[in-house]
């Protein structure tokens, strides 16, 4: 019970603690890094290097007035912000952090992630609808269209990984990369998954559901206080989830590159997993700092006219090669 194995209490507590603390710290990391990319310093006043900035932010959000607009639909207005952090945290259940560290060893792990990502779309949709506000409705509409359409080829793009790994189980997919990471045979799958993942987490440059230059703050226009904070934290947990999914599916998960194992397997696995995750987190923040938001029709046409054919082609070629090798 108190040893590191998949599903043990220690493992679960470790995963939950790490994910929550990391998601909170991401608020600070993102602001600091954005500052660096803009030749600024970013928040560096609260605590050493501004490390306690997240704490101050949370304190501010909690003590703010938690206002429900009288014209909103109360029940769904309250439920909507709860959905996204819950489903994002549930998604972490199947992520293999390291050998023997994880919550569940589900044999349909990838499908679980997609089921949860599908539910996450309801958060923005319900939030936009329940606010009874034109801008929120537009934001919710955009979120629904974007997340549902990008989920299609997000799913197709990783079928190549499933073919090569011969399993939906995340741990087996990681173990199948013993001889070589899937980034090499599945490069186009990786590109499609990366872009679709960005759109799925509503992060820049695909933050059209929020699009503050066009529709105020989109689906969370009417939200304040900790309800807004839940959307906010949910988005960061989603970013963390994507940053962990990408290494697991394409970069060998906890496996060390070039056999650079350090210490016992759990320690080494956690180290390399966090290094890879951190690299993707920095990449996503860089993308936020650098890239401009597309128009909504560009987003949709890019998805259906470029990403979908690319992912289908990738799947076709992968399947053909695997079949010709007589697997």
């Amino acid at each position, binding site marked *: 019970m108190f040893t590191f194995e998949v599903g043990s209490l220690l493992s679960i507590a470790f995963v939950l603690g790490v994910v929550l603390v990391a998601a909170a710290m991401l608020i600070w990391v993102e602001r600091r890094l954005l500052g660096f990319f803009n*030749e600024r*310093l970013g928040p560096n006043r609260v605590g050493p290097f501004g490390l306690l900035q997240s704490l101050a932010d949370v304190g501010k959000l909690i003590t703010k007035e938690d206002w429900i607009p009288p014209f909103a639909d109360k029940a769904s207005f309250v439920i909507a912000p709860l959905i996204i952090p819950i489903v994002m945290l549930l998604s972490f259940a199947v992520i293999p952090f390291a050998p023997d560290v994880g919550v569940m060893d589900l044999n349909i792990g990838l499908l679980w992630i997609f089921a949860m990502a599908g539910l996450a779309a309801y958060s923005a949709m319900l939030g936009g609808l329940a606010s009874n506000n034109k801008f929120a409705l537009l934001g919710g509409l955009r979120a629904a269209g974007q997340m549902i359409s990008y989920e299609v080829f997000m799913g197709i793009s990783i079928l190549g990984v499933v073919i090569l790994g011969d399993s939906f189980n995340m741990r087996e997919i990681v173990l199948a990369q013993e001889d070589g990471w899937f980034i090499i045979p599945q490069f186009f799958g990786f590109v499609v998954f990366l872009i679709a993942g960005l759109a799925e987490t509503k992060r820049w440059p695909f933050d059209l559901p929020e699009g503050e230059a066009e529709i105020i703050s989109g689906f969370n226009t009417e939200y304040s206080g900790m309800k807004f904070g839940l959307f906010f934290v949910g988005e960061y947990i989603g970013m963390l989830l994507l940053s962990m999914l990408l290494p697991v599916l394409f970069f060998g998960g906890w496996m060390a590159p070039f056999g650079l194992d350090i210490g016992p397997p759990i320690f080494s696995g956690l180290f390399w997993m966090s290094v890879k995750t951190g690299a993707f987190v920095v990449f996503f923040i860089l993308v936020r700092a*650098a890239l401009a938001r597309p128009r909504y029709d560009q987003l949709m046409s890019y998805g259906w006219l470029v990403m979908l054919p690319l992912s289908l082609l990738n799947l076709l070629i992968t399947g053909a090669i695997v079949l010709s090798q007589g697997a």
Partner: protein
Amino acid sequence: MLSAIGKQVHVIWTQIVTLALVFSHMFRKKDTVEYPDVMPYMFPRWRGRIILTRDPDGEERCVACNLCAVACPVDCIALQKTEDENGRWYPEFFRINFSRCIMCGFCEEACPTHAIQLTPDFEMAEYVRQDMVWEKEHMLINGTGKYHDYNFYKVAGKSIGGKGKGEARNELPPVDRRSLLP
């Protein structure tokens, strides 16, 4: 078909170039000046806190002509003229409401005697609104400010005690009009 693929490759490539460029900014010198810890360099002609200066002889430069109050676009200057026993004009009171002042510097431009001047000091926050109203004794300094040797009464034709008509710098004695008769 090929050109369409080339276009998409170009799209991705330009985005990658952008990412690389922005990433390179991470290692450049930061623009931020951490203000309360590090004072930024303030230019000498910065338009900040307003002072009243004295002439080189230590007398008040302000002659209470009211031109600054007229020029002021927000009407934040109030003053009252009075005279001393030598006939010098000076303000009885001189009041600037800094909660209204927009630091435009029009008063400095309007001033004929270089009395009112703006300085690079900008830290003028107060907790009580009434503390933003400054009187003459708060603004009057002992120096000459930006113009060190200008003395209005030494160059103006007005006669005051100790200096009659025609005794100012570069001034000829008054013409006796009757002596011009043929």
